[in-house]
């Protein structure tokens, strides 16, 4: 399948971050069209028709979110762009932030028009200082040229954007934790409902959307929702930025239609590294259940992956080859979740530490077969009783590797203690 050049069409151009490059390549045409030729309801309608689903991980219909937000007339109202990009294996938003920042700004301004919002925030992960500066420079340029600020292009829309840096906490990618963090608190998840569209930043209506979701919007406005809906899997369509890493020749970000089979994504990324055989993939980052070789022809989209018990998430595809150690892989991911648990609820906070310890014991050669049942049991409890998506998704790596690669666990259990044990590492 050939690569698309929609979201990435400007990324390779010289000076692609500059507003002049952007303007010379269809930039701010969609915003102009929306403001001059469309009503907010028409914009929302096109986004609904596009069937765009959130690219941050949860896959919620963007048009629906905007409809909810437009119905709440409390002011002021906010657009918050989630540029936290914390899911391990994800580096696709970075392509837009670093090479096409105005696409995001334009998408946010259109969103503001569509839901009648007053101010925008881009919450960008602390590990992207260079990208944060690029965004700040882009906001300044857009303000100078009248694409952000008061009465944009002579319309009634007044809207500008503040760039806000995170400081290294994965859970702050979760939208309610992100809002807590934006308010200057420890970023811990809030109970939903109320949802941010009704009570978000400063308890005011807030639309939280991912970088890639917002960057799809100018294309939808310019070309129509039906055009967008015609790309890829008709049920959950559109172009998609896949981050692929691990055992492939050319790890990177590839823009392909939703629903591209995993096998073709791997081929696009140059095939398996050193010609090794494919063993497994985590298609949606650390949060997703792993796929094995029998599932390599599954389409990468929300529905097809849900149908085989895993998920697309942010489209972070991590590839493992025949030499990979699945128990070690699951341990590394568990250690990550244990480290990132915000500590608000007990199942996630205590459960993950326990899972990590049992996993470490297995890696050290001290495990028993009963440990596998114990692990599945703790995982079930974490999954059922957690407060936010972090806890829910955290154990997918463990349960899926036990189910699909039980033999590798048994190898550890029935073998001599290993010299290099993972448990000696600090968490």
């Amino acid at each position: 399948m050939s690569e698309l050049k929609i979201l990435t069409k400007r990324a390779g151009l010289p000076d692609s971050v500059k507003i002049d490059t952007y303007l010379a390549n269809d930039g701010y045409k969609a915003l102009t069209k929306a403001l001059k030729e469309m009503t907010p309801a028409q914009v929302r309608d096109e986004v609904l028709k596009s069937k765009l689903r959130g690219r941050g991980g949860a896959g919620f219909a963007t048009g629906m979110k905007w409809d909810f937000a437009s119905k709440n007339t409390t002011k002021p109202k906010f657009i918050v762009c989630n540029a936290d990009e914390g899911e391990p294996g994800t580096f696709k938003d970075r392509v837009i932030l670093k090479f096409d920042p105005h696409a995001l700004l334009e998408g946010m301004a259109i969103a503001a028009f569509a839901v009648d919002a007053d101010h925008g925030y881009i919450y960008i992960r602390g590990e992207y200082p260079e990208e944060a500066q690029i965004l700040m420079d882009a906001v300044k340029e857009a303000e100078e040229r009248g694409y952000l600020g008061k009465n944009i292009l002579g319309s009634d829309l007044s809207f500008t954007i503040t760039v806000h840096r995170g400081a290294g906490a994965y859970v702050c990618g979760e939208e309610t934790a992100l809002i807590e963090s934006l308010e200057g608190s420890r970023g811990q998840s809030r109970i939903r409902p109320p949802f941010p569209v009704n009570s978000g930043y400063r308890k005011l209506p807030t639309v939280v959307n991912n970088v890639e979701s917002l960057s799809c919007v100018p294309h939808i406005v310019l070309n129509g929702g039906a055009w967008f809906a015609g790309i890829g899997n008709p049920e959950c369509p559109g172009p998609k930025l896949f981050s692929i890493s691990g055992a492939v020749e050319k790890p990177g970000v590839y823009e392909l239609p939703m629903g591209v089979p995993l096998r073709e994504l791997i081929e696009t990324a140059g095939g398996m590294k050193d010609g090794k055989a494919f063993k497994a993939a985590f298609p949606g980052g650390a949060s997703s259940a792993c796929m094995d070789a029998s599932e390599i022809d599954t389409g990468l989209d929300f529905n097809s992956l849900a149908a085989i018990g895993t998920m697309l998430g942010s489209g972070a595809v991590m590839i493992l080859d025949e030499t990979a150690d699945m128990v070690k892989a699951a341990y590394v991911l568990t250690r990550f979740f244990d480290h990132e648990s915000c500590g608000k609820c007990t199942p996630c906070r205590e459960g993950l530490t326990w899972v990590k310890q049992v996993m470490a014991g297995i890696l050290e050669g001290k495990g028993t077969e009963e440990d596998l049942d114990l692990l599945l049991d703790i995982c079930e409890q974490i999954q059922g009783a957690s407060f936010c998506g972090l806890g829910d998704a955290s154990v997918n790596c463990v349960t899926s590797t036990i189910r699909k690669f039980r033999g590798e666990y048994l190898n550890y259990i029935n073998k001599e203690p290993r010299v290099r044990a993972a448990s000696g590492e600090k968490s």
Partner: protein
Amino acid sequence: MSVQELFSDAELKSIQEIASRYEEPGSALMPLLHYVQQIRGYLGEDEMAFIADFLGITRVRAYEVATYYTLYYTKPRGRHTIQVCRNLSCTLAGAEGIVDFLKKELEIEVGGTTADGMFSLVEVECIGSCDKAPAIMIDGDHHGPVTPESLREILNTYRGKP
């Protein structure tokens, strides 16, 4: 301690400018902590207290926030901080070997600072450079894929930097 001793006039101006970006005072807390850390290297108690008072929030809140996030440091550290990613794609590409190499080369443990105060070494989770695994960050710069040989050179370039 008086304000004059903590921050220069120019620094105070920057602090005011950052705070003025937000209607909600609390929202300026994280940007101000970033700023103080950038100019001082870490977040001292007096500085945190000053920022809290300046914003009209409790000091304990500033401290809670500073200790919650991985990228804030409340203790002095080396001039340059090396963050080695230990998440999956980097581990698959040999991140453990990178950590071992750095420990030997710098003669410190993870969490430690070299005797000359030049480098601190920490392990972190995915930094969004998985296509360049094994990846590291030094201060705000991403590097990868790194090898022991390339690391020696990279470290040398930082030895000359402020």
